[in-house]
């Protein structure tokens, strides 16, 4: 069970969160084309390397956040138990 670095809760079991998907910017809905819009809807980068993802802390703080994960090795850029970052503490 992967530990996910929730920026609000701290490290949490991945079962407590939902991976929403790759972080994509949404085309302007009033000016987009079918090709552009459907690329936004369906296409994925899906790399076996680093990718920016949106996560939802479903059972914890209820917050959506963006983080980077290596999909080949299944680890985070800011590993939850890596070097400490005092600024992450929100109390």
């Amino acid at each position, binding site marked *: 069970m992967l530990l996910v670095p929730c920026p*609000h*809760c701290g490290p949490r*079991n991945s*079962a*407590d969160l939902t991976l929403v998907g790759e972080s994509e910017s949404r085309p302007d809905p009033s000016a987009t084309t079918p090709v552009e819009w459907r690329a936004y809807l369906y296409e994925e980068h899906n790399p076996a390397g680093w990718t920016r993802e949106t996560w939802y*802390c*479903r*059972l*914890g*703080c*209820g*917050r959506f956040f963006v983080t980077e994960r290596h999909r080949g090795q299944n680890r985070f850029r800011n590993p939850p138990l890596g070097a400490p970052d005092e600024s992450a503490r*929100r*109390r």
Partner: protein
Amino acid sequence: MPISIPKASASVSEQVEFASPLAGAGEASGGGWRLSDESATSKLLVYESFEPDGEAEWHLGVGFGAATTAGDGSLVCGVRPGEWLLLGGSPPSAPDMSGVVTVDMTHGLGMFRLAGPAATDVLAAVCSIDTTEAMFPDGAVCGASVARVACTLVRNDVAGERSYLILSQRSSGRYLFDAVRDAGVR
């Protein structure tokens, strides 16, 4: 300072009997643990002000992940970033803050207390949160799955005794109470 949560609250009508989601379950106990229904406690959800200056936090005294007892006796729990649940107190005491959104959750949440020296062991059968002293001290608040129900878990020791408040959506309350009680029976 341990608190006891008064059951009366303004949103609970005096003429009409309040039906607890745990009605029929009520109380239970086993070796070193007790469960008691506290669903009738008033529960007020308070959001931080739309002006992002941390004013609500300043007024309420705690941030996300912690609980403290307010002057009126209510337990102020930082349940999410920018969201507090005020348990008890009479009347539900939104601090004097205009422009903050509040929602009365008294009826929407079931709440019971798991107390006793074995309470932590019972919880470990149904919840993956690390409840060792350093990681979940008295006054700690977190969201967690308890027996696969999304809950808010508050460490709220009474007179020095280990004690947890477990809050869930009302409709799951009876299932959850039974599941935790069963976990205590080995």
